[in-house]
């Protein structure tokens, strides 16, 4: 029998870290502030308390080099966990992640493994503004050689992080800051969840909603509201963007015929585009309505609360889109007029 208890997302991160470090004494953890009193929103504190500075240590503000150093140590068979308190800091290490971590195995004809997990946290709210609120999963997913994971509930968080640390490949592990405070039942024991399998968070038959990261909660809330109106929405927690679990998505769309993809990133040029493209190709004949995407609009993140409020997609946005899809009487669309949508901001997203 598995004993579980309710813990918060940040505790799930902390627990997976400690248990993975117990399971493999070679694993180490480094990051700016991992050993301080706050321990990256509490996520690294228990590991530091338990394993001390030999295995959990602070870093200089040199993201490019320290990422490369983590890669170098990982190549030597010492799995490395890195943490960035905001995803943006990882852009300074883009060359190391994309040109080195993702390709070192390939360019060496398979001589090496690169077991590094790069955790990065996505800010939202309280005026994080344009440079402290972005998620880059669409960027990293572009690159073969990387895995890209975005957990949702504490249960997924612990299992996916545990798997990521044990995975012999570079994994970008993206934590939405608001998920740190979400609570859920989590087994005490260590466990793995496969990287590359989506999870059907709730079944439904009318619409498939593929949700990423925090949007899983929005999608589940929307599902409840829609249920009251007689619309049954299936919610797929994608969990992993790369590898992408095409089968789970296609099977669901085969059943529902309608697809919404909701993401914590921009819709345009984001991960939701790949999912929509894949389904519109491989699931073309299943589709009864156009695929809709519900993500961030095509603007940088504004600071002001008044603007933030309308910037982020809400439960209601999902409800509206779903109802719209169900109500669709499928009239043949007309060719667009000369008015160019790209000049109208209203065209950029569901806002």
């Amino acid at each position: 029998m598995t004993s579980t208890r309710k813990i918060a997302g940040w505790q799930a991160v902390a627990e997976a870290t400690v248990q993975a470090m117990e399971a493999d004494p070679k694993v180490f953890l480094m990051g700016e502030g991992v050993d301080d009193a706050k321990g990256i929103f509490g996520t690294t504190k228990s590991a530091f308390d338990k394993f001390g500075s030999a295995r959990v240590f602070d870093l200089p503000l040199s993201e490019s080099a320290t990422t490369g150093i983590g890669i170098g140590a990982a190549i030597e068979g010492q799995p490395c966990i890195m943490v960035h308190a905001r995803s943006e800091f990882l852009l300074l290490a883009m060359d190391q992640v994309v040109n080195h971590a993702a390709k070192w195995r390939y360019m060496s004809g398979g001589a090496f493994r690169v077991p590094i997990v790069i955790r990065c946290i996505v800010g939202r709210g309280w005026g994080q503004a344009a440079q402290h609120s972005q998620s880059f999963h669409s960027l990293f997913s572009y690159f073969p050689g990387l895995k890209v994971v975005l957990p949702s509930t504490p249960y997924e968080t612990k299992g996916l992080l545990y798997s990521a640390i044990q995975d012999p490949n570079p994994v970008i592990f993206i934590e939405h800051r608001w998920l740190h405070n979400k609570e859920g039942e989590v087994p005490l024991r260590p466990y793995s969840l496969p990287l590359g399998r989506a999870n059907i968070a709730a079944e439904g038959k009318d619409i498939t909603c593929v949700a990423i990261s925090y949007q899983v909660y929005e999608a589940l809330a929307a599902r409840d509201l829609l249920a009251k109106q007689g619309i049954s929405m299936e919610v797929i927690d994608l969990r992993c963007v790369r590898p992408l679990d095409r089968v789970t998505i296609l099977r669901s769309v085969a059943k529902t015929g309608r697809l919404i993809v909701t993401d914590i990133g921009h819709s345009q040029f984001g991960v939701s585009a790949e999912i929509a493209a894949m389904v519109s190709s491989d699931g073309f004949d299943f589709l009864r309505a156009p695929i809709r995407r519900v993500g961030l609009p095509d603007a940088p993140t504004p600071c002001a609360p008044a603007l933030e409020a309308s910037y982020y997609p809400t439960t209601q946005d999902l409800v509206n889109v779903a109802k719209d899809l169900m109500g669709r009487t499928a009239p043949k669309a007309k060719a667009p007029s000369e008015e160019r949508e790209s000049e109208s901001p209203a065209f950029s997203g569901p806002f």
Partner: protein
Amino acid sequence: MKSPLRLDIYRRMLTIRKVEEAVADNYSKQQMRCPIHLSIGQEAVPAVLSAMMTHQDRVYSSHRCHAHYLAKGGNIEKMIAELHGKATGCAKGKGGSMHLVDASVGMMGSSALVAGSIPLAVGSALAIQRAGKKDLSVAYFGDGGSEEGIFYECLNFAALKKLPVIFACENNLYATYSHQSARQSVTDISKRGAGFGVPSERVDGYDLKAVIDSCTTAVERARSGQGPTLLEFMTCRWRDHVGPDHDYAVGYRTEKEVAEWMDRCPLKLLEAELLKSGELTSADKLQTENLIKTEIETAFHRASQSPQPFTPETFDDIYA
């Protein structure tokens, strides 16, 4: 030391201190809904540097930009409105506390990426040089900022081209709660300029005369086409890394450590000196304080009255 300069510096320091204290005092009202990195304790350096600059001279800053903005003459009302997320803010509410900007006085903006704006300041200096002007550009950053590789790339480029830029490093010994010695093999940051041929100096940032002297030299060097200077100012932030409070409870530094800096507070000492020498009378002091107080009260009042930005404004200012 020229007396008007010292008075000017005094006024700038006082303004920063008072504005920052007002921000701290009002923060718990939850009307300034963005992360704030206060400059209390770090007023001297920007006050001195700005006193030597015109509005044509450029400043680039970091997350901890309030003092740099205010010292440079940035509009107080617009700053407070910005912290309140109002449409009347210096960045129309788009930026918030970490992105203060006032183009009219040469405050070119602030990056929340540590060291991220250093090259922008160097680029500004390049543009100044290419235009044949005598202006200069200042890049502010912290001890933590000196750990980013881009800083060294900038030192090399600025020295190679002899650009009119001052690298103003405010070394408050900490990056968040991490002491410099946990992050840097050699803690004397000014020692790293020599390898690039950049004249460099470590200066006690609480010794006003030393700050004025080093800045005078650096400014002259820049204006006379002799290239960049790296100044490392030892200083202390009195409040928490982020937020309005004192942070002794966090445990990474003692109250005593901060108190030793507070005892040497350059604002307090300068004020005492000016009063003693008669450069400042008690009446002047009162008047100055009242002026600043009124300005701050007005700023907070207007900020609270100002309109929020409208949703469609989210899509303004993305492209020119």
